[in-house]
């Protein structure tokens, strides 16, 4: 039997943790404000540790195997980063302490801002956004504030390529902008004709992912950006794919006005089963004054001769859009990203991208003869193949993905980008060795042959996993979203 839920394990009367008895006189508690029943589990520490440890064993993870989930950059998460983020001077620091007591953290944040500026080619960076999608929201709000300040409030249109991630249109809509979908051309680039047709005085901006979600560097990127700028719009970069660009090209040099980074992709902070992320945003000079508050600045310059460090502090930019969350962002993720960048250094970071691109092109080269790759040219850090064959009509990308589990691999991203039928989006990352890539390629090739010779192997997959395919319709129809009330204390 699979590990049950907490509510199945609870035993009335069992106690898991005790605090010291209060060393102060007890105060009167207002009875009318007190809850009668606290229906939480009754377990002891061994129950809890075994429960969650056993649960963990039901997961596939980077630490246990290859995880080529496209667009998510599932690279190895260095253990050192986990140690540095837990140093007591970082982990037990209150966000509202006087700045004199938090100079180490502010220095780290300041340096991280500087490095991200340098890598992206930007004039300013905010570390506040919690994840990529919140970085997008911040970026679109910045664009909006910029046009408001210029009195160009008719600029309400945001162009989003049809290959874009779902967060791009969702973000634009959430910011009160009009979303216009832009089609891609047959080489996977932004369609210049379609773009031209939208370049008018209502254009606020374009959200461009480059390399795009096909893993392709837009061959006309300079032209695309020039067209948007000439129409008076700004260009937002979805930096989810920055793992292809470290030391390769700086988006700011290409003309991007604003871009979000994902520390949880490019800079190796762990994905944690769904988060936390961290989505800093870089901006060109004309947007710096609008950045969310606060940003880290130097309040008083240091003196190197006297070995006096600068005094760091927090500041609100003059036309700030405000804050996008509590406090200063996901500081713990910043420590990890800082550590990562420190270990790689400038040459190392370029290698990260070079090897990410090498690994993707190697897999592409090995799989091209077995899977149709609709936009087939030199890719960047990932590529998208089709999970279907005309002579195996019943097989879908999903079947291939499920069969991959039987070979011990996490599947690629399925059904995204939407412009490829039955898409399999494959991002190996730079931290995988040739041996792993070869094993994966062999499995993929074998599956392509099984799809034709023994399709039921795919249809019945996965077999070796803790559970088989799930009834997703039942989950949505019958909606069981938590244990019943009181289930812990029966």
């Amino acid at each position, binding site marked *: 039997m699979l590990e049950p839920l907490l509510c199945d394990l609870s035993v009335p009367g069992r106690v898991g943790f005790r605090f010291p008895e209060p060393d102060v006189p007890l105060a009167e508690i207002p009875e009318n404000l*007190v809850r009668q029943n606290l229906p939480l589990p009754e377990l002891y520490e061994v129950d809890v540790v075994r429960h969650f440890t056993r649960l963990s064993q039901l997961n596939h993870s980077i630490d246990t195997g290859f995880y080529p989930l496209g667009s998510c950059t599932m690279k190895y998460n260095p253990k050192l980063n986990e140690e540095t983020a837990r140093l007591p001077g970082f982990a037990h620091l209150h966000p509202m302490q006087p700045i004199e007591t938090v100079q180490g953290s502010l220095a780290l944040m300041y340096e991280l801002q500087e490095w991200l500026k340098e890598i992206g080619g930007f004039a300013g960076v905010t570390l506040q956004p919690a994840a990529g999608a919140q970085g997008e929201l911040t970026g679109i709000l910045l664009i909006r504030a910029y046009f408001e300040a210029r009195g160009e409030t008719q600029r309400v249109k945001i162009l989003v390529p049809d290959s874009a991630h779902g967060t791009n249109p*969702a973000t634009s809509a959430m910011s009160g902008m009009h979303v216009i979908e832009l089609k891609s051309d047959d080489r996977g680039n932004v369609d210049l004709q379609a773009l031209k047709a939208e370049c008018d005085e209502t254009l606020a901006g374009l959200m461009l992912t480059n390399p795009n979600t096909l893993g392709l560097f837009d061959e006309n990127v300079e032209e695309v950006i020039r067209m948007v700028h000439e129409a008076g719009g700004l260009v937002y970069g979805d930096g989810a794919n920055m793992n292809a660009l470290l030391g390769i090209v700086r988006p700011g040099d290409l003309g991007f006005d604003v871009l979000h980074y994902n520390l949880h992709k490019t800079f190796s902070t762990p994905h944690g089963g769904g988060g936390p992320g961290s989505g800093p945003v870089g901006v060109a000079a004309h947007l710096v004054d609008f950045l969310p508050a606060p940003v880290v600045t130097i309040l008083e310059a240091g003196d190197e001769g006297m070995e006096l460090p600068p005094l760091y502090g927090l500041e609100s930019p003059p036309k700030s859009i405000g804050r996008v969350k*509590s406090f200063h962002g996901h500081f713990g993720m910043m420590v990890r990203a800082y550590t990562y960048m420190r270990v790689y250094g400038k040459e190392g970071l370029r290698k990260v991208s070079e090897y990410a691109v*090498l690994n993707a092109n190697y897999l592409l080269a090995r799989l091209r003869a077995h899977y149709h790759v609709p936009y087939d040219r030199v890719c960047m850090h990932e590529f998208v193949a089709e999970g279907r064959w005309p002579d195996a009509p019943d097989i879908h990308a999903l079947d291939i993905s499920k069969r991959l589990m039987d070979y011990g691999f996490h599947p690629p991203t399925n059904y995204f980008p939407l412009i490829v039928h039955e898409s399999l989006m494959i991002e190996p990352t730079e931290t995988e060795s040739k041996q792993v890539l070869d094993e994966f390629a062999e499995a993929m090739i074998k599956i392509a042959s099984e799809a034709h010779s023994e399709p039921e192997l795919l249809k019945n997959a996965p077999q070796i996993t803790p559970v088989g*395919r799930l009834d997703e319709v039942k989950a949505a129809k019958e909606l069981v979203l938590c244990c019943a009330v009181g289930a812990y204390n029966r």
Partner: protein
Amino acid sequence: MYLPHTDAERKAMLATIGAERLEDLFQDVPAKYRFPELNLPQALTEMEAMGELQDLAWANESTHDLICFLGAGAYNHYIPAAVDAILRRGEFLTAYTPYQPEISQGTLRAIFDYQSLITSLTGMDVSNASHYDGATAAAEAISLAYANFRGKRTKVILSPNLHPHYRQTIHTYNHGSPLEITGEQLDISAGPEALIPMIDENTALVIVQYPDFFGRIYDYTALVEAAHAMGALVSIAVNPLALGMLKTPGEFGADIVTGEGQPLGIPLSFGGPYLGIFATRLEYVRKMAGRLVGETVDNRGQRAYVLTLTAREQHIRREKATSNICTNQGLIALASAVYLSLLGKYGLRQVSEICYHKAHYAAQQITKLKGFELWNQAPFYHEFVVRCPETVKDINAYLLEYGILGGYDLGQAYPQLENHMLLTVTEMNSREEIDLLVETLAEVSNA
């Protein structure tokens, strides 16, 4: 280090690709911008990097070095050893969103446990798998309410006693939206009744905090009834640790519960990552943002778990999604689930009450001092406001000399509360520490 490629392997791989050099793979990048020289530091070994990071961490004075009476939305609590032991498991730490349920039952079941714990704690029907933090969760409550009335109700009432960061975030999120956000101009010393006359038939949502930003605890039943009488919804932003002893928002009839989950076993970490709690009634589940795990069966007849109601989310609905949220706070939600299951029914009530008693002891002692006065009129939880005889800045500077991290300077966010300090006491503060605070404050009051 973290790159495995040998020279021989690189050459072999390039040969398979049909390229000569790594550089050849970047022909699509405009040549004039290709391979910029980056002004970044040189690489360090692990030992050197650890040394540098240690130096930075030592340059801080943390709540382990100081005696902490600072709270205001982020709290210094004890974290049982087992919590981090679980978080460090690579199978949780290095997985991502459980899109493939067959190889993600660990994460899915842990989220289902989390959802169950949060609904039990708040008295609500459903909880999502997390938001970014307390501020963004409060902002997403507005989106739910707005969608619920299909944009036909355009007024949102914010209690002025809602955390200033939450209110600021709400304003950022709603800049230029058709919503009228009001209520913050009200008298901060008034109770929730003061909000009632503002509620009308155009009101979509009323947002209050529990305990409020000043630590006060109110019974919100009358407020909820008044809102419901007008057809409006009520969202309550909670401190989940306080719910270890306090009546649930569910008992008040709240429609939405949001909150900052940080007190549940999450380190202060200079402000994040924390945990946005979001729970609601079943009838609003389809308007709710964020991931949701549901129970089902697999094709072998086993009970199994899967992400469900995904048609609300950005990857399916794109510009029509309930929110743009994608990555959430998965690992932090797991931390809170481990914390809540370890403390459980007895431990959570115990720690919750200890905070209450210690805070009341501190308040009682401080208000005996000349020049210090308790501002709170209503019952309070583990935070309270004292009017001080001098500026909070000066007092805090003085306290810091004695290794004490004083309270939050309320004048920063509330001009009418100049010289008022918000003090927080938790189970981490011993009686000796509280007495030391009081003695040191006495020196201020005698000076």
